[in-house]
């Protein structure tokens, strides 16, 4: 069983290589605003999360997922479904 804490910790690991400015990552860190990720980088990150947990995260979900915490919630929900 994967819990939210494990999901969150792994998401942080996946984001780290995409964080060249080494910002401190937290629940409310936003992808576009804080990490300045462009849409292609976000889509590649989604692909790596899909592969990590063997889930489907449709791209049309993305507008609602602005922060790391929101993504962790969404992934946890998909993994435990």
């Amino acid at each position: 069983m994967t819990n939210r804490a494990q999901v969150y910790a792994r998401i942080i690991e996946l984001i780290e290589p995409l964080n060249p400015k080494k910002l401190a990552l937290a629940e409310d860190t936003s992808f576009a605003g804080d990490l300045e990720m462009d849409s292609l980088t976000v889509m590649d990150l989604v692909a790596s999360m899909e592969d990590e947990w063997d889930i489907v995260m449709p791209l049309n979900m993305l507008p609602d997922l602005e922060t790391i915490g929101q993504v962790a919630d969404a992934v946890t929900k998909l993994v435990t479904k």
Partner: protein
Amino acid sequence: MSDLFSKFDPLINERADLLATGVRDPFAIVMQEVKSPTVAVIDGRETILLGTYNYMGMTFDPDVIAAGETALRKFGAGTTGSRVLNGTYQGHKECEDALKDFYGMSHAMVFSTGYQANLGMVSTLAGKGDFIILDADSHASIYDGCYLGNADIVRFKHNSAEDLEKRLRRLPPEVGKLVILEGVYSMLGDIAPLKELVAIAKAQGAMVLVDEAHGMGFFGEHGRGVYEAAGVADDVDFVVGTFSKSVGTVGGFCVSNHPKFEILRLVCRPYTFTASLPPAVVACAATSIRKLMHAGAKRERLWDMSRTLHSGLIARGFRLATDSCESAIVSVLMPDQETTVRMWQAMLELGVYVNMSRPPATPAGVFLLRCSLCAEHSAAQLETVLERFVMAGAAVGLFAEAA
């Protein structure tokens, strides 16, 4: 009051910085005269056109022009109406008949642009609860079709059969699935391994749409596209294409053998809620499409020219996006934006127009000088082009950086 344009400031500033270095704007070229499919006048200078997608050189074909002139006189300058109201003339039906004959399919629908064809087909075919599975490097019109519709969108790694299969397997077996592929990807000029990709899509119960915008006219026995050359015509449900490349005018279309295809005319909003193409345009298109059915010699010349440019650039030390010549697009990899614009401008001043391409239009953040060939290019023009590439590359220090 907040200025709605504030969000564009980063791009405005980036462009201002670039133009401040003294280069001209690569996205603001004006063609003062167009003399042929391969020559135009830009800044008063006769320029070889090497970035027009005018693959088969049909823009000045005498039969095509004559058909357009006749239709313009006979049917007027425009239809002022939607295809489903007053905007379907005899010419629109003849154009759809030409497409059915060209593709050997039972249904054809003509849209006002290629962009709208993708926008309409993608947004209408897959609805709420269905899944669209698209190649990561898909054209903007395909992505925009996804955003206009209500389907769930899943993206697979560019041209990867393995990744497509993995993502398809994760989807519930009972849901509707549309896999969207392109024959030729227009930025790098690479082609899709359609045999493998289509087989996987079919095995997983998906319908398949292939965009053949850059393949129509010179791939496959009948020039239908990469899907024909790959031998998967029977497994492709929808082919989308455009008139603004090999056909030489403007417009878009979808062809299919699906028995219920005609209903799309009433439910596909980018088809229904816009004005139809002018009579002259559909007359030009129909004539051009019928001529492309018998264009074997032009096809050969186009391939010959493409291979000559590809191998010639490699021999002169340029880095290209594909190891071998896969299509009529030859893309030169460039190190950064400033060198790309300087080299693009140097080429223009030497009388050769190529496309400059930059992210986000390009994949993986690459900068390109993109060439597209035309069957009407002469061997002498290509010699000139290769010579100018070397001169421009030397002028901007491209070879020094690569060394």
